[in-house]
């Protein structure tokens, strides 16, 4: 499977995701944001970081870069797109995913391992997980507070487009297990065709027992499945 990781000025998880993809046997290429052509890819990843120093709004400037037109075209042709953290913010700024990420409710940058629950395990990204499986995974963000309008929220629920929700280690989804104030504890969502996933947690940080755990591995093996 061929993957491309788009690199923006200020991306800082681009190499982590490349290491994870290569470990999982993806043939990966790094693509600079000024490129106007994408290499043939089955998966495009928008990595975490602070593209353009979060100027204006997180992801706003990256969302208008040259390569993004190609990413939008590929997405519309059904290519799989994964946006992690800042990548999720960029996806909302491009309009590929609806909604937005506000400043964390407590105004603090949060870097910690939390729990999320797999809400939908019937997608390209999550078919190797069990439904309602609880994953321990790292978050590291200042703007992760998912917000959207009432109609989109209903659409997400009705069409099973919520990928992950923040929960406690037993899988309870409630206010105590919501680290950043996200609507309905939402940690990740799909577009209506489910070929685009945006998520705040970092699966690429959870692929090695030596440094963390391997709860992120199945996201990549799902894609290969």
């Amino acid at each position: 499977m061929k993957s491309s990781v788009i690199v923006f000025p200020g991306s800082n998880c681009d190499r982590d995701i490349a290491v994870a993809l290569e470990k999982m046997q993806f043939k990966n290429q790094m693509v600079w944001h000024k490129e106007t052509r994408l290499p043939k890819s089955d998966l495009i990843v928008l990595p975490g970081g602070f593209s353009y120093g979060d100027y204006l709004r997180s992801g706003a400037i990256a969302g208008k870069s040259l390569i993004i037109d190609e990413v939008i075209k590929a997405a519309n042709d059904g290519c799989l797109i994964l946006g992690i953290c800042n990548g999720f913010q960029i996806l909302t700024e491009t309009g590929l995913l609806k909604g937005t990420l506000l400043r964390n409710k407590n105004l603090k940058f949060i870097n910690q391992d939390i729990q999320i629950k797999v809400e939908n395990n019937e997608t390209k990204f999550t078919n190797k997980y069990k439904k309602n499986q609880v994953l321990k995974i790292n978050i590291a963000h200042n703007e992760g507070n998912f917000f959207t309008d009432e109609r989109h929220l209903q659409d997400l629920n009705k069409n099973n487009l919520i990928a992950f929700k923040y929960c406690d280690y037993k899988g309870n989804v409630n206010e105590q297990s919501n680290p950043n104030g996200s609507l309905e504890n939402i940690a990740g969502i799909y577009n209506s065709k489910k070929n685009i996933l945006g998520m705040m947690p970092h699966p690429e940080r959870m692929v090695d027992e030596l440094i963390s755990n391997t709860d992120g591995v199945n996201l990549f093996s799902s894609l290969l499945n």
Partner: protein
Amino acid sequence: MKFSITVTLKKDVLDPQGKVVQNTLINMGLNLRNIRQGKYFEIEINEKDQSKAKKNVDEMCKKLLVNLIIEEYKINKL
């Protein structure tokens, strides 16, 4: 021609920064009811026709400067 743009969060969107500023002012003994924090831009454009110029600025707001899901904006000619 010069314009100013004020961008604020919509009424229903939580503004945690505004809340912190508000609480600090109250703790300082100052009297106020509510604060909403926003952003301010000044834009100069080379266009003589005012209605065209305003239209250009409006396009800039919609395409980049404002996130219409959570923010609203006001344009003023300076």
